[in-house]
Structure formats: C-alpha cells, structure tokens
C-alpha cells in the first residue's frame, strides 16, 4: 500500500519534470521570436525593403542590398552544393562499403562539424587572396561548402530508407542499376531530399562567419558575382555594433526579415514534401 503511494508520487514528479524541461527548452525560442518581432516591426516599412542604406548620419534607408545579396549568395551556394551533395549522397548509398564511400561519409561528418569561421578563412585563402578581391562568388562558395555535407548525408539516409523491393522491381523489368536508381529509387526518396535541401538552405542563409571575409559587404545593390556583396547577416552585425540609434532599429528589422525567411523556407519544405507525397501515395 505504502509502496503504491510512493510509486504514484514518483510518477507525478517525473511527469512534471518532463513538462518543465519542455517549457525551459521552448522559452528561449519564444523570447527570441518575441524580441525580434516586437523590436523589428518598428523599423519595418516599405522603404526598408526597397531602399539602399542611407549615408552615415542621415536617417532612413533600407536593406534592399542585403536582402538581394542573401538570396544571390544562397543561390550561388545551392547551385553547386545541391548537385554535388545529392550525387555524392547517391554514391555513398549505392556503394556503401567501398573505401571511397567510407571516406566520403567520414569527410562529410567532419566537414559538418568544422566551425563556420574556419570555412570562411579557407575560402579567403583559395578564392579571395588569389584574386585580391572580395566577391559574391567566394561567399557563395563558402556557403556551399557548409551546405554540401548536410545535403550528402540527408540524401544518403533517405535513399537507404527506400525499400530494396522497389529497386528489385525495376531490375526485374530490365532496368540497369543506374536507371533503377535514377528513375525509381531517387524519385521515391525525393520528398525527403527536398525537405533536407530546403532546411539546409535555411541553415546557410543564417550564417555570418563564412561571409565576413569572403563576400564581405557592400553598401550598394549588386548582383555581380565578381564584386563584394551584402548579406542580411553581415549587415545586421554591422548595424548592431554601430553607434547609431536608427541603425540599431534597422538591425532588428533585418533580423526579423531573416527569421521570416527561414520560417518561410521551412513552411515551403513542408508544403512541397506533402504535395509530392500525396502525388506518390494518393492519400
């Protein structure tokens, strides 16, 4: 009888502790969102999206250069990281026990753990120093390098989840191994891979360190990949450490736009995945 009472008490306490942990985990997210929205919304207006930064000392101006810059940089990064990541992921999943695949898997995991500032320094060495020029190309390269291991590993994991029976079905119809992979296995894994890619995009869109001395910054609107380019993260950083009240407000607004962009990416990923899955399964 006594034993039962103790048992129930322990159960109640543990359930409460679990609930408390969840709250503790969610509080920072809630606060971040609350602060970013409440502070950022004040400086957010049409001008913020369309105007370039105003000269120092003058009020107003906007983040148009940074918004465009972030999109271009992420685009450059994705343009080479997505194909490289997916193809290498397919290789690792197709030939899992070869030495190259083992090495590639290990390399991807290591690269994933390399601090982003180190990636920035590396790209500075190979793509900035030789040309004596900061460039969007270098910034995109740095972001792409950050993105490759995420895409590779996601692709590999999702391909492994495709039932082998599907591949056998294609082989039994006279498909070659490569054809079976491209036309049956890869499409079956596509919804998940798309989610992975979009989440990787969201992740690199929020990187600052790899851009600090690669894309550098640019007070003017530029889409030329050979020139330095602004980005939301770097511009938020510069504005936040400046001594001007007006710039601080704009930094909050920039942060809000960045958060909204990431959220939008996540929603887009969910939507696209659902849509594809519905097409495939008919439910």
């Amino acid at each position, binding site marked *: 009888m006594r034993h039962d009472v103790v048992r129930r008490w322990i159960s109640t306490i543990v359930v409460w502790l679990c609930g408390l942990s969840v709250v503790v985990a969610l509080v920072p997210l809630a606060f971040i969102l609350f602060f970013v929205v409440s502070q950022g919304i004040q400086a957010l207006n049409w001008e913020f999206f369309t105007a370039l930064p105003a000269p120092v000392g003058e009020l107003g101006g906007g983040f148009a250069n940074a918004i465009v810059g972030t999109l271009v940089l992420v685009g450059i990064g994705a343009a080479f990281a997505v194909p490289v990541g997916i193809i290498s992921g397919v290789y690792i999943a197709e030939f899992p026990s070869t030495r190259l695949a083992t090495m590639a898997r290990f390399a991807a995991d290591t690269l994933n753990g390399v601090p982003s500032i180190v990636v920035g320094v590396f790209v500075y060495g190979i793509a900035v120093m030789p040309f004596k020029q900061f460039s969007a190309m270098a910034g995109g390269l740095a972001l792409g390098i950050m993105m490759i291991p995420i895409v590779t590993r996601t692709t590999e994991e999702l391909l492994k989840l495709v039932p082998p029976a599907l591949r056998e*079905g294609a082989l039994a119809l006279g498909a070659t191994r490569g054809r079976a992979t491209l036309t049956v296995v890869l499409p079956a894994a596509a919804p998940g891979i798309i989610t992975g890619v979009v989440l990787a995009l969201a992740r690199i869109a929020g990187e600052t360190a790899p851009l600090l001395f690669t894309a550098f910054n640019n007070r003017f609107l530029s889409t030329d990949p050979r020139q330095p380019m602004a980005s939301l993260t770097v511009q938020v950083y510069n504005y936040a450490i400046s001594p001007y009240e007006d710039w601080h407000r704009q930094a909050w607004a920039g942060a809000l736009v960045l958060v909204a962009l990431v959220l939008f990416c996540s929603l887009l990923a969910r939507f696209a995945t659902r849509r594809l899955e519905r097409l495939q399964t008919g439910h």
Partner: protein
Amino acid sequence: MTTTAPAPPRSLTTVVPPARSVSVESHATAIDVDRLSFFYGQKQALFDITAKLPAKLVTAFIGPSGCGKSTFLRTMNRMNDVVPGTRVTGKLIVDGRDIYAPGVDPVALRREVGMVFQKSNPFPKSIFENIAYGVRLNRLAADTSAMNDIVEESLRNAALWEEVKDRLHDSALALSGGQQQRLCIARALAIKPKILLMDEPASALDPIATQRIEELIYELRSKFTIVIVTHNMQQAARVSDMTALFWLGKLVEFDRTEKIFTNPAEKLTEDYVTGRFG
C-alpha cells in the same frame, strides 16, 4: 512437432483437389537446369539441381521455409546477382542459351524472364506509369497510342482493367493489396516476357485476392511459361501442371502435379504433401 500419439495420416485425396491432367511430353523445354549449385558466400544453398521445366505450363516449387525454392527461382532471372558474394555453378539454359555463361547480359535476360515478388512492390507513381515504366525501358511502344494500348492490354491480362480504367493516373499506392499485386503482374506482362517467375505472389493476400491471382495464373498459362513458388500446397495443386519439392537445398522430386500429390515416388514427398513435416 512431436506428438505422443500421432494421428493416422490423412488420405491424399482429401488433402488435395484433383489436378488437371496434361501431357507434359508434348511441351518443349523452356528452362533446362543442369547440375546447378548456388552459394551465399561459403554457405551452399542449392545442391546439384537438374530439371527440365516445360514451356507454356505452370511449374510450382514447394517445400518448407529455407529449402531453397525462392533462391532457385531467383537464379532464373539472375536476380541473385544483386546480392553480394553469391556464386553459381552448373548450367541454366533458357531459350537454348546458358544464362550464366560469360557475356550474358542479366539486364537483357530479365526482359525475357519477368518476375513478380512476394510482397507487391508498385513504384510510387501512377497506375499508368507503373506499366509504362518497363515498356519505355524496352522501347516497346512506338507512340502514345501504342503505349495506351499496351497499358490497357496488360491491365486486362491481369484482370485489373475494369477496376482501374477510370483512375489510371491515380497513385498505384492507393490500390488495395490484391490490386497492387495484380498491377505488378500487369507490369511484368507488359514487357512481353517468355517466362514469368512468381515468388509466393499470394502469400500476403486475403483469400479472395488469392483466388483472383490463382484464376489469373490459370488464364495466363497458355501464353507464358510460369514458375511459381508457393508454401501453400493446395495452391500448388490447384494452379500447377508440374510440381517440384525442395528440401534442404535439394530437389527431392519433380513430376506432374497429379502424380506428386497422389502417387509420389519419394517417401519424403508423401510425408510433405500429407503434412507430416514442413
């Protein structure tokens, strides 16, 4: 499986419905197997199998789990090639050609020897695309209307057309289990194989779906050489003309189904078909 007082053996005629009587001699040999052995790494799974499977008839492989019947079936379209570390000795002649001879392309072979798997495995594509997939691979349709004809004909052959004709572009995964398996059969038929291998095609299906598959085999037997693996002896008796019993990787007995189930030559066969082991 040991009981203190064994029940008297059931008579063979009550266990098995009468099989159809055929003159096997009048049929050509579709698959000629000569001392075939198969190894998974060090482990030997098939021992010196020799048999002649007649064309345009249904041959059933029966035997307890792990006896090698599925492995044997999968040697016939070289599906085991996909499994690393496997090895084959002996000859397996399809259409007058040893399929394990050097220079034989397993991809080309599989276009002649179709296969239906134990668990239905439709691609996550539309019903139409499932059939069109193999047709495109083998370039069998010259244009869209030819493709439409092949899709319809295949679905009719698999007794699925009436059920799906209004939703050809819906996902195949929305079909029921039995329909999915018939779709897989239609998919295999669409590339016009000479031989159709079926690996326990009804084992995951309910009795009504199973009956439909069996009826289908019955209808297809005049057009194709069919080899079916089954662990259901009544099914083997119902659908097949020839039956082979496998035990521990060896071919115990291979004869007309009627004979296997009524007057087997081997004691082991009699024990198996009367349910005394397996």
